[in-house]
């Protein structure tokens, strides 16, 4: 048995606690049965004509309540435990002891992921039975809904755990705010997957490399894939936390997978897109790929940013052994590299003769748009890197995030009608401008961000050298 899982079971699953929680859950389910079932029909004469079989009605109500309770126990409560799994160890001063043990990164990951929310899982397993047995629809539908709930819970826990671990890697001290943030991210991920269980409303045809997929199955597969990669992320972060040498190759595989997935995805059957004036399919796929790469790149820049020392190590390795330095390259740079690939792919696709003439005639500058978007991403990630490279970084990182928010959302809305498009091009891709006017502003900003990052890293290096010379 995994010792970390066992330890969590010892701590989390006291008999009184389990009994109290199970009793509360069962009381809610019985309450749902009594209220929604024959008792309710007895109170409201005539209701039985409306609902048909009252027992069946009560069962469906219980199943609905059970599903809601599952979401509460697993996604709200369990995610909190997963978010705090490592941070609480740091706060208690036991984390170094765990890092020193012989428990491997995979065993440590699943021992904590499954162990920290163990009480939530045990109660959830009790509630699963009525949710599955009495759920509306066919057995296959009930199974699919349960699979969604379980995947959503695992994904929520994995996301919260990853965020908590990333703070631990950055040696951020434990605080309620950090745990709350990790918890919130987990909940958002969990409910995003949970809410996708009903598929997409309306006539939908989603294609993947020419194969049209039923939306329910497609969403379930997508949820499973997302959960899988979140678990992989937990494992990789845990490797780093346990000081096991970790190269970014799995990250590159993930980016390649994401690129392949988005390149083959045909979303033109989505209700919100049908009927719109669309660019060529290849270009649209490239834009999707670019967006996916940028989301991954921003996440990497926030979750695993190098500090000034990391940049110095990388620069030193690049000078001495460039090939080996690839293993130390900050992972968001690989994201930018893949994003650059998506831009090139988009430009090539735009030159293909399958474009829609209406779109070509529009005033949108399709050539410059992905390049400008890419330049803004370079600017943002380098600014984030610069903020993380400053030793007293917390305030500066928040400052950069606020700046990014202002740049893309608030300022364009506030200034859109006041300033010319050439000025707005410094804030967002101004899609109607000519190529140079659209690309030069974000490219210049990216250059400034690069200069800022280099200056910060050099300044800290000088400080370290001066201190070492004074000491010795």
């Amino acid at each position, binding site marked *: *048995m995994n*010792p*970390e899982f*066992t*330890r969590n079971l*010892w*701590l989390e699953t006291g008999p009184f606690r389990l009994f109290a929680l199970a009793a509360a859950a069962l009381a809610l389910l019985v309450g749902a049965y009594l209220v929604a079932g024959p008792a309710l029909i007895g109170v409201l004469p005539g209701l039985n004509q409306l609902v048909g079989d009252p027992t069946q009605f009560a069962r469906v109500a219980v199943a609905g309540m059970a599903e809601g309770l599952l979401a509460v126990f697993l996604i709200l409560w369990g995610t909190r435990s997963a978010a705090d799994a490592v941070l609480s*160890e740091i706060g*208690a*001063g*036991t984390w*170094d*002891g*765990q*890092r*020193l*043990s*012989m*428990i*491997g990164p995979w065993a440590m990951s699943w021992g904590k992921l499954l162990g920290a929310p163990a009480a939530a899982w045990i109660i959830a397993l009790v509630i699963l039975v009525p949710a599955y047995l009495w759920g509306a629809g066919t057995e296959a539908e009930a199974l699919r809904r349960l699979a969604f709930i379980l995947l959503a819970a695992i994904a929520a826990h994995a996301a919260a755990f990853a965020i908590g671990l990333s703070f631990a890697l950055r040696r951020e001290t434990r605080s309620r705010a950090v745990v709350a943030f990790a918890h919130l991210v987990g909940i958002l991920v969990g409910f995003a997957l949970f809410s996708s269980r009903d598929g997409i409303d309306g006539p939908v045809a989603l294609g993947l490399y020419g194969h049209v997929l039923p939306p329910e199955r497609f969403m379930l597969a997508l949820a499973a894939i997302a959960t899988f990669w979140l678990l992989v992320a937990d494992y990789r972060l845990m490797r780093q936390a*346990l*000081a*096991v*040498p970790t190269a970014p190759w799995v990250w590159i595989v993930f980016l390649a997978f994401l690129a392949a997935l988005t390149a083959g995805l045909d979303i033109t059957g989505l209700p919100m897109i049908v009927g719109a004036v669309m660019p060529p399919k290849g270009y649209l796929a490239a834009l999707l790929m670019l967006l996916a790469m940028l989301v991954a790149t921003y996440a990497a820049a926030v979750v695993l940013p190098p*500090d*000034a*020392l990391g940049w*110095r*190590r990388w620069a030193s390795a690049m000078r001495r052994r460039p090939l080996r330095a690839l293993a130390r390259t900050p992972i968001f740079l690989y994201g930018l590299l893949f994003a650059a690939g998506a831009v090139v792919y988009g430009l090539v696709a735009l030159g293909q003769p399958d474009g829609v003439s209406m779109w070509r005639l529009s005033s949108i500058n399709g050539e410059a748009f992905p390049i400008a978007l890419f330049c803004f991403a370079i600017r943002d990630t380098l600014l984030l890197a610069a903020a993380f*490279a400053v*030793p007293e970084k917390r305030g500066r990182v928040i400052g950069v995030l606020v700046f990014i928010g202002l740049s893309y959302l608030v300022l364009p809305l506030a200034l859109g009608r006041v300033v010319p498009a050439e000025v707005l091009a410094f804030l967002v891709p101004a899609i109607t401008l000519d190529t140079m006017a659209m690309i030069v502003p974000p490219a210049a900003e990216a250059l400034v961000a690069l200069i800022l990052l280099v200056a910060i890293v050099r300044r*800290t290096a000088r*400080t*370290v*050298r001066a*201190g*070492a010379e004074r*000491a*010795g």
Partner: protein
Amino acid sequence: MISIDNLTFDYPTKRALTEVSCTIAAGSVTALVGPNGAGKTTLMRCLAGLDQPVTGAVTVDDVDVLAKPRLAHRHIGYLRDLFGLYDELSVRRCLAFHAAAFGVARAERASRIAWAAAALGLTDRLGEKAGRLSRGLRQRLAIAQVVIHKPKVLLLDEPASGLDPEARMELSRFIVNLNGEGMTILVSSHILAELEDYSTDVLIVSGGRIVDHRHLHDRAGEGLSGRSAWLALRFVGETTAAAVEASLRRHDAVRDVLPDGDLVRFRFVGTAEERAGLLAALVADGIAVASFGEARDLVQDAYLKSVRRAAAAPEVRP
């Protein structure tokens, strides 16, 4: 047992260790001393594989700690200064968890828990929750946890911090006993007198560099056993250090004579009666003895000299 080669460690804005190299012999108890901020804790964390240096290598029992940290941990026990315990678990479960986490075979765990509890005086506390133990007992439990897999190397960072005098004496006894079990021990402390009791070597760190690394005793605990101990003799009047040394060297029980001004330190192997006989012989030789007793300042003396020397001549390197 421990080999440190050219270790340099940087924090983002501060160099904590600069080109540190040394070898720590198997079976030794090495006192790691130095001023606050000298790099003691950083050095220990690098040895344990908890922090990654900028350059350099650390091997413990021929295992590269930086390349294979999980394998190296089989041989390492490390107790940090501000340690934590699982307060809601019983002492037995705390030990059981650590036994499993450090790869002790399932069949051996019960006996290993019994051994660790006995070695640290916790046998009658196995059923108590860790959170209800006193400071001294918590310290014992923390040490029991890190030695339960019988590591070859034990790293103790300020283990006596916050302990009362009685608990400190017990800690000294535990360290001597664990060394007797074959563990190589590196222990940092600000309480230099306490390190005298059990240290065989001293490693002095200042400004992120090793400024001295010297051998003190052959075996930890000899001073406590009464068989062998470092003694110090202070003389006055016309007596010279050379005369004292000559007189001492006539006795087979005297080893390693170290004159230092009006003080001569030497290692004595013998009983209390033989020690009394030595004093009588010295007086008979005309040595004007001002004081005679166990040397309690070997680590302190080495420390003060090394740190002052380092301050006077910053270019000095180990």
